[in-house]
């Protein structure tokens, strides 16, 4: 159980850097599936790095279950929030796939059968069960990314944060990412993902938060965020709604963010 609250969070990169977050107000309840979207440089990655204490706000507060994270260590926050980086090579360091996935849960105190089960399950979900003894760098870039995802998933943290999980994935890889999210959701975990893939966002998330220049400009379900009334706001941060939403609006059959919604409306 971890709900997350950002109160008037502002973040300026050091040495006179850019103002990446500009007064973010956001509450994410336990078990929500939230997609963060917005053009490159809109503050998405900066925002999620506040959730596990990798970055601390310049002003404002980040709360876990109502408690200010400023009084908690990164080690404490790591128990609550697991973060899979956009670039898996910033994360992977172990000599074997199994040791890579073991590292996180072991540091959280898992051992023996419990650890083995967590690791085997996480590897099976991403289709790397046969590769447990391989060197991570013998895997291609897209499977290394799935490995990084498995490593974070295995930690069993109440909150799972994925930074562009479908980037570089083929169709099968995207299906695996969707499965990981569905499994985490079924286990009651909160899933937060950054993505540029609007079809993936519409299909796998209950809530879509749109950022522009460090501010939240839209926040709602996929049907409302991708509805025609939101297109101007989306386009102001260089995003286009998914094709089924455009078609549904063109045919005046309602808000249809996914293929399934559109076909049902026809």
């Amino acid at each position, binding site marked *: 159980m971890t709900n997350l609250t950002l109160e008037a969070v502002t973040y300026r990169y050091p040495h006179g850097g850019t103002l990446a977050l500009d007064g973010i107000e956001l509450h994410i309840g336990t078990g929500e599936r939230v997609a963060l979207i917005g053009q490159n440089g809109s503050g998405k990655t900066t925002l999620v790095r506040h959730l596990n204490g990798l970055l601390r706000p310049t002003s404002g507060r980040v709360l876990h279950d109502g408690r200010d994270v400023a009084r908690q260590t990164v080690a404490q926050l790591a128990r609550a929030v697991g973060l899979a980086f956009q670039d898996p090579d910033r994360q992977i360091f172990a000599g074997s796939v199994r040791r890579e996935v073991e590292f996180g849960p072991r540091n959280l105190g898992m051992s023996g059968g419990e650890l083995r089960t967590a690791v085997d399950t996480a590897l099976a979900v991403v289709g790397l069960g046969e590769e447990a003894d391989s060197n991570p760098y013998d895997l291609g870039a897209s499977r290394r990314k799935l490995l990084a995802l498995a490593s974070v998933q295995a930690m069993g943290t109440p909150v799972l944060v994925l930074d562009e999980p479908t980037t570089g994935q083929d169709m099968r890889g995207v299906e695996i990412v969707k499965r990981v999210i569905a499994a985490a959701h079924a286990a009651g975990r909160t899933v937060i993902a950054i993505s540029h893939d609007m079809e993936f966002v519409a299909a796998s998330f209950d809530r879509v938060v749109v950022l522009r220049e460090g501010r939240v400009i839209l926040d709602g379900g996929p049907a409302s965020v991708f509805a025609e009334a939101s297109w101007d706001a989306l386009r102001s941060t260089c995003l286009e709604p998914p094709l089924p939403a455009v078609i549904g609006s063109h045919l005046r059959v309602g808000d249809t963010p996914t293929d399934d919604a559109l076909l049902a409306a*026809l």
Partner: protein
Amino acid sequence: MAALTLVLESLTYRYAGALRPSLHEVSLELREGEVLGLVGASEAGKTTICLVASGLAPRTVGGTLSGRLLLDGEDTAPLAMHDLAGRIGIAFASPATQLSGVAATVYEEVAFGPMNLGVPRSELIARTEEALSALRIESLADRDPAQLSGGQQQLVAIAGLLALRPAHLVLDEPTAQLDPAGTAMVAAALAGLAANGASILVAEQKTDLLAGICSRVAAIDAGRVVLDGPAVEVLADPRLTDLGVAPPAAVRLRRAAAEANLPAASLARLADAIAEVPPR
């Protein structure tokens, strides 16, 4: 002979130390001004084709290659990498492998390639500014490349490639790190280069992007070319999904509608709507 072409002729390639070849008798032909899209599942051989087609394999990467790579009709076998550098540009999915790491500003980074090829100063400035403007990153000119976001770095890497003005380009998932706006800018830049006669080989997972800029698409499976034809036909080929390639959204939607047994009138309405909405 004068036509700008890039021809891969029955290329079989094995990485150093690998037991089996990664490519088997790959033949592809790009005419002047042609954009050829390369699709396939992860690890099907797209990156390897890009390495071979740009001359980096085996010259820099090692390994053994048989078959011929022809550039404007000329066999490239006797040519060294620096002979190829001004004629074929290559971009990778990750800007980290592309950026020089020595330039203090984006401007210097973009100028780095042509400067090393000895392009005179006045032309160097013109090329650099044109490349920055093509990708609308003029405002980043004075920034430190290391301090940019992944997507911004990729635009800088591609601008550096444009500044080389190569007659041929090989791009391996150039928009993987980019947001929709960046992806659209790269697509426009590639279309512009093709209109000026460049032949462009582009590997991508984003079939919607390929649908917009390619005249032809080839599909790769286990190191072999298994489909090669007009983009509209290959991207609508039902075998594409079996190969692990997601079709463009319009194709996917049409197929889902057909499988959902919608009444004929609804299918026709949907097909008309797909044709009427502006391409993305």
